[in-house]
């Protein structure tokens, strides 16, 4: 409610900024016509897909563009001072004193060989000439300020000795030590788990108010923007296409690209039927291929006219503080938008499968990793053996043709579960059956027919393709290996598979490096489906992809699944993606499944407390949606020595619902409580109590 007083000018003001990189094709304008401003205690979000120039803008502000980058036009003013044309020495001083940056990967911002305390105090002793002892005191207070548990102790540690979320907090503390007027954050939570991300986002919000810092927040995640930003700029292919308050942008996006982005983000609050994702057709053009003298989005726009292809629209103010770069913003009504033919597959109701014999059935499956003990006895083989219980007592089954989503924080055993099923890890105990066959044997001892029916799509398409073989060869390999088709028809089959994943025959001869991330993942999917398997395991298949590509790949997977009737297990950390995709969902924590059931039941009360916390942490791309505020503290405990009783009891926010502050949780393993035939929850809290809870997300 306080009004603006001293210095009405914004902290940062960009006017038609343009940044170029020198390449062998000549100078390429990576960013142009970018204008925005950021005030005190305001967060300005810059969103867009990868390759849209978001990070270039951030680096341009402080001229960190590298030897081949240069600012070629416009003006960048920081507190009234023009930054363009400053000497490196002047900029260095400014960066040290008034502008700080926080990057995506905290481990790259911290020096691994220096203690955290030394790195923090150095900022003060070098820049401000503060005595070491006083600097130490200030550093500890700043660590407290960023909610670091036990800050004095953390000062003595090295970066690798604290968790990722804590590392990022150290980086933020370091950035704030000099009390900067401007903080530039480039995807600061992208590398973090959703529960940790939620805590860091809360922190950023608090700090903005306490320090009156202006923040430029760069991200691809529309959910995060809705949570922390006051105003948003949407970037597309190096240009700002829409700028406005966060409410205006989400409530009434005016540019077709922004509207498209909103349609391809999975939404948590909505029902499954309404959560169909609509990808934006085509892809972001490379800087040298951008249309000149035309609307930059016209080739992908559903509303484009001749005018869009022949004339360049300017950023126009449509209502106070809300501008868009489109000729037709006033006439386009996104609510009447209908997807063009073929963009979204027809989703026939996937009834059936219920009551059928499950295709895969796991019972009390345990996969342990043996850990070297550090004692001397172990050297002679007498030491006590220690085990990392990566998967512990997991029981589940999936009916044919259905999809099971598996979610949980990193380190909860999702990937180990997949590896165990596929045969890369051998379980220590328990049963695992696939089509009635025992699959507790490692893959090397499995029958070829079994391997054929059980395929996998991996997270990172870059590292799962051989860089020196062309695409045709890589997809053809499983066809030859499993004799799916006679050898003279392999090429035809490869082309058919490529078509199925919406790539044309010319891709056969391309090498992986000639493909974009989304295309690589399509090839990965084509390869997994080549042998016409009955079960496909997808390990985070879209988490490395941009939202619009992500939507296309997810739709593709569903379509292929329907065509072939394939069963899928879909591993993800993103609860909103899983909802869209799955018939059943299993929530894992520390090697255990804590809740499993039909997708609809997982997202409504009764919740297992861990599921509730996960749901409450998911950033929702809707600033008006109300979400419960539940934050988990600390990190997932070590699987080497999991907590007694309920594995979640050390972090459970609902323990106090039980008598004695949940003493029973520490002592006894919780029972499975059946909410319905298929939905079960592992918790001591009675179901009646859990049913009484409010839903986590309510959208207005």
């Amino acid at each position, binding site marked *: 409610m306080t009004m603006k007083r*001293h*210095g*009405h000018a914004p902290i940062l003001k960009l006017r038609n900024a343009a940044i170029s990189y020198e390449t062998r094709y000549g100078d390429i304008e990576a960013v142009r016509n970018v204008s925005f401003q950021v005030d005190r205690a305001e967060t300005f979000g810059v969103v867009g897909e990868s390759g849209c120039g978001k990070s270039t803008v951030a680096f341009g502000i402080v001229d960190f563009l590298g030897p081949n980058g240069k600012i070629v036009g416009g003006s960048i003013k920081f*507190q009234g001072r023009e930054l363009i044309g400053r000497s490196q020495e002047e900029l260095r001083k400014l960066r*040290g004193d008034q502008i700080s940056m926080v990057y995506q990967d905290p481990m790259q911002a911290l020096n691994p060989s220096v203690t955290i305390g030394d790195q923090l105090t150095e900022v003060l002793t070098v820049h401000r000439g503060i005595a070491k002892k006083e600097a130490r005191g200030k550093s500890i207070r700043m660590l407290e300020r960023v909610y670091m548990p036990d800050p004095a102790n953390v000062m003595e540690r090295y970066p690798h000795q604290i968790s990722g979320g804590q590392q990022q907090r150290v980086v933020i503390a370091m950035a704030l030590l000099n009390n900067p007027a401007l903080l530039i954050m480039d995807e600061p939570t992208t590398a973090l788990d959703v529960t940790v991300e939620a805590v860091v986002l809360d922190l950023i919000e608090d700090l903005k108010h306490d320090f009156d810092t202006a923040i430029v927040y760069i991200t691809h995640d529309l959910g995060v923007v809705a949570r922390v930003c006051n105003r948003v700029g949407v970037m597309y292919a190096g240009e700002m296409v829409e700028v406005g308050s966060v409410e205006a942008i989400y409530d009434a996006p005016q540019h077709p690209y922004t509207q498209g982005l909103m349609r391809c983000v999975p939404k948590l609050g909505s029902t499954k039927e309404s959560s169909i994702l609509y990808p934006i057709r085509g892809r972001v053009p490379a800087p040298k291929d951008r249309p000149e003298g035309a609307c930059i989005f016209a080739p992908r726009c559903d509303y484009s006219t001749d005018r869009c292809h022949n004339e360049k629209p300017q950023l126009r103010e449509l209502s106070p503080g809300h501008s868009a770069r489109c000729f037709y913003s006033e006439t386009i009504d996104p609510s009447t938008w209908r997807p063009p033919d073929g963009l979204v597959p027809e989703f026939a109701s996937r009834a059936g499968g219920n009551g059928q014999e499950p295709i895969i059935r796991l019972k009390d499956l345990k996969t342990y990793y043996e850990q070297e003990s550090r004692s001397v006895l172990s050297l002679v083989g007498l030491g006590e053996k220690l085990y990392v219980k990566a998967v512990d007592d997991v029981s589940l089954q999936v009916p044919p043709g259905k999809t099971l989503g598996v979610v949980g924080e990193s380190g909860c055993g999702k990937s180990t579960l997949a590896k165990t099923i596929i045969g890369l890890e051998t379980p220590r105990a328990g049963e695992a059956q696939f089509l009635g066959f025992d699959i507790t044997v490692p893959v090397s001892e499995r029958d070829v027919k079994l391997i054929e029916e059980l395929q996998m799509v991996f997270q990172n398409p870059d590292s799962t393709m051989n860089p020196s073989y062309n695409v045709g060869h890589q997809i053809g390999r499983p066809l030859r290996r499993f004799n799916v088709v006679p050898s003279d028809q392999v090429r035809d089959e490869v082309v058919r598979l490529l078509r199925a994943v919406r790539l044309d025959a010319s891709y056969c001869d391309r090498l992986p490096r000639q493909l974009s991330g989304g295309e690589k993942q399509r090839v990965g999917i084509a390869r997994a489906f080549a042998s016409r398997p009955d079960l496909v395991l997808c390990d985070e298949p879209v988490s490395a992809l941009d939202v619009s590509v992500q939507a296309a790949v997810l739709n593709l997977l569903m379509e292929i699944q329907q065509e072939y009737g394939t069963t899928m297990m879909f591993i993800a950390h993103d609860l909103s993606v899983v909802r869209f995709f799955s018939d059943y969902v299993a929530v894992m924590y520390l090697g255990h499944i804590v809740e499993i059931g039909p997708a609809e039941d997982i997202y409504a009360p009764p919740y297992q407390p861990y599921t509730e916390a996960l749901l409450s942490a998911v950033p929702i791309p809707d600033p008006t949606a109300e979400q419960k505020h539940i934050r988990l503290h600390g990190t997932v405990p070590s699987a080497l020595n999991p907590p007694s009783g309920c594995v979640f009891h050390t972090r459970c926010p609902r323990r106090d619902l039980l008598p004695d502050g949940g003493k029973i949780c520490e002592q006894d393993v919780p029972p499975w409580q059946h909410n319905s035939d298929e939905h079960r929850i592992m918790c001591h809290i009675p179901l009646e109590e859990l049913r009484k809870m409010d839903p986590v997300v309510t959208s207005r």
Partner: protein
Amino acid sequence: MFVRDYMTRHPVMGDPTMSIVEAQGIMAETSVRHLPVVETGKQLVGLVTRQRMRIPPTDLASLNVWEITRFLSNLTLQDVMVKRDAVITIEPDVALEEAAQVMTRHRIGCLPVMDGNTVIGIITEIDMMAQLTDLLGGRTPGIRATVRMPNRKGELAKLIGAIADNGWGIYASGGVQTPKDPSHWDCVIKVRNVPQAELVAVLERIEGQKLIDVRQQH
């Protein structure tokens, strides 16, 4: 109500070697009237105000137009600033009225706020005005009433009691000794969401006190 709550953090600042011409531009662009001058690490070395930039015409009298240009372009902040020793500063934890007193005593318009020798903010007379406005709830619509009461114990309690008895609340308040009358105090209160007539009726019934002004603020 401390300096830290009302100061402007991240004030616009200048370097000692910054030219006057540039500093003028920055001050005009950001509409500030005071420019703390700092070296690396935001260490305060001086202060420049708009007044300081007014070069006495006598300095220029003997110069021709070309020489004036050169004279001006060579002038930097360190040539015109008030040097560090002469700059009066304040700490963030000082009470606001004490800061105001410092400003009145020295007849100055701003105080750089310091942590050691590092500038962390600035507080100006405008900030003080804003504080005065907030103190009396000036930015919020409601009824502003001035009550004159005898200068003795228990009078304020009577006023507050009368308001509270009706289930109302006081949004903001302030009191000063009545000008030229040390035997009385004037107390200003801001009350919201109460019909004016009812409030007046209640205030007029308080024994020994006099309602001297009531007005609606929007």
